[in-house]
């Protein structure tokens, strides 16, 4: 009785498996072209710069380790943002939640007596990081659930507030003279990858990456396999329909925000427990905002988040490797271009794909 849907045939020449990948790939291509142009303005050869970039990252174990290290934090903040978006919320506060999580991990690590077995200390500190992130997310969560306050604005404001709060805590309560960090934790350090394979020696990569990957698997399972995930996505797609379906949208929002904050907070483990063993002012700078890009490029899917976190980590580490040829500001610019290109190209390419499919129907 209805107009029949066109059969889902592929546009000629484009294999089916490629189609979902096409939009992000197009975006990356655009970004690469813009990057080339920037490199040329500095009088350098794009080929040489990209070669150095790859060599300095995936080209050796140390570089790879650094990429993994940076990706770990980004996976966490990317998941945090992606989960929020699935529930219809923009968590721009991953930045602050990440910092708060790191601080909480350090504070608990300091409270624990030295010599606490790692099997106890690590879980306790990791839980503290998650709780810290959740605490930061609770404010926007409650305000959104209770008053419908825009989480975009509240999380932005919370970033400023958390920064000031942590600054106060570090400056006046837990300071080590002439530094911006707390004392080293007594227990709860997460071992480096180098402890297992000397290949990674020197790199900051540590076993937090397992937590991050675990979080990605968990998030995927939670979103797509559980009833809570079903309700979360419904609340995100159509809050009115969710409410009709007996779902308490407000409490879904609150719960999701807490979970999202916990994921962001988990990212703090990477630096604090896995790398420096102390909380340092500003360690999170930018990773929260970059999480938005990671989620976007990863299309809010946990697997996509992992891949795009690796991509952005590569760019970030690569910036250092090519510093001799082009200033690191260029990579900042490039990162922004990637985000804009993805945000614009994805809907556009999808529309084109649909149109091609329709025409051939």
């Amino acid at each position, binding site marked *: 009785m209805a107009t029949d849907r066109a059969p889902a045939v592929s546009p000629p020449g484009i294999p089916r498996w490629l189609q979902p990948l096409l939009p992000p790939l197009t975006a990356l291509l655009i970004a690469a072209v813009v990057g080339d142009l*920037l490199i040329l*303005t500095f009088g350098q050869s794009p080929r040489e710069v990209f070669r150095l970039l790859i060599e300095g990252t995936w080209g050796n174990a140390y570089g790879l380790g650094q990429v993994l290290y940076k990706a770990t934090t980004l996976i966490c903040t990317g998941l945090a943002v992606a989960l929020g978006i699935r529930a219809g919320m*923009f968590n*721009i506060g991953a930045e602050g939640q990440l910092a708060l999580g790191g601080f909480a991990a350090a504070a608990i690590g300091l409270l624990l007596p030295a010599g606490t077995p790692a099997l106890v200390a690590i879980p306790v500190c990791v839980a503290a990081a998650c709780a810290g992130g959740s605490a930061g997310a609770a*404010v926007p969560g409650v*305000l959104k659930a*209770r*008053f*419908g*306050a*825009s989480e*975009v*604005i*509240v999380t*932005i*404001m*919370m970033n*400023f*507030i958390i920064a*000031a*709060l942590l*600054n*106060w805590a570090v*400056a*006046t309560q837990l300071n080590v003279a002439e530094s911006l960090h707390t004392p080293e934790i007594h227990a709860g350090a997460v071992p480096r990858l180098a402890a297992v394979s000397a290949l990674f020696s020197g790199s900051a990569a540590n076993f937090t990456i397992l937590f991050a990957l675990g979080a990605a698997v968990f998030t995927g399972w939670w979103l797509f396999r559980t009833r809570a995930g079903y309700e979360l996505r419904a609340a995100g797609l159509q809050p009115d329909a969710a409410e009709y379906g007996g779902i308490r949208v407000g409490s879904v929002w609150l719960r999701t925000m807490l979970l999202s904050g916990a994921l962001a907070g988990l990212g703090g483990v990477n630096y604090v427990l896995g790398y420096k063993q102390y909380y340092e002012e500003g360690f999170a700078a930018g990773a929260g*905002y970059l999480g*938005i*890009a990671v989620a*976007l490029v990863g299309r809010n899917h946990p697997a996509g988040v992992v891949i795009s976190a690796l991509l952005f980590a590569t760019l970030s580490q690569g910036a250092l490797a090519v510093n001799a040829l082009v*200033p690191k*500001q*260029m*990579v*900042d*610019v490039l*990162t*922004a*271009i990637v*985000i*804009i290109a993805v*945000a*614009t*190209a994805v*809907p*556009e390419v999808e529309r084109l794909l649909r149109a091609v499919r329709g025409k051939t129907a």
Partner: protein
Amino acid sequence: MSVIAFLIQTLRIATPYLFAASGGVLSERSGIIALTLEGWMLTGAFCAALGSFYSGSPWVGLLCGAGGGVLVAALHALASIRYRADQVVVGIAINLLAVGATRFFLRLAFDSSSNSPRVPGFDWFSAEGGASQQSASVFVSLANPLVVIGLISLPLVWWILNRTPFGLRLRAAGEKPEAVASVGVSVARVRWLAVLLAGVFAGLGGTYLALEQHQFTDSMTAGRGFIALAAVIFGNWEPRRVAVACLLFAAAETFQIRLQGLQLIPSQFVEMIPYLLTIVAVAGIVGRTRQPSALGRVAD
């Protein structure tokens, strides 16, 4: 005296907010989320410094500042209107871009990662004039064309919105773009214009910062675009209430500056005041806000 000093300081601090918030109101009322105010301001500040430096005239700087705002606004419009990209994402990306690009060009133009050289600004009645009394020198800071334009920017936006045909279309585009399209008016064109105009205002906000300081400094907007956005929301997208919000936030900051001298509470806590105030406002504890219905929505 100290009340006057307080008010004047408030006004000075409010100037960039008033500019940026004007842009915010225009953009958001047309349906485009203005998370980019920060980036527009920063680019405006950089271009103003550049223009003023190379021409030697702050007026050229002013034009360049406005132009810089328009330039990034155009990028924002291109992505979010022409290509229908998610506006929050593009907004954040453009903020990142503005920080990166201004640094990049700072390096390229002045071989510095943090400051431009000193550039001419508007100091018509600066100290040399001989105004030795304090009160006079206090008023001096208002004798700046940008402060004056800043003061009338929100009234101007109010007039555009409520008294011109373009304003009518703009408001309609932000509430119900389908209705605008159905009468043969291009929603995209209305929004483009609104966003470009918003870029002018925000760019001037940055211009004020740069010319007041006689230079561009890396990241010199320091979150002011976000405060302005908060003022837009706190003011319920209504130019007059937004103006009040800008002044209120500026007063809170002035208060902070003065309170801090007394060292009653740690500066970090005083610093939080505007942000806390904003959260309280957004939560609707002091009154409900209602955003334009089509804000952030892609128009087909």
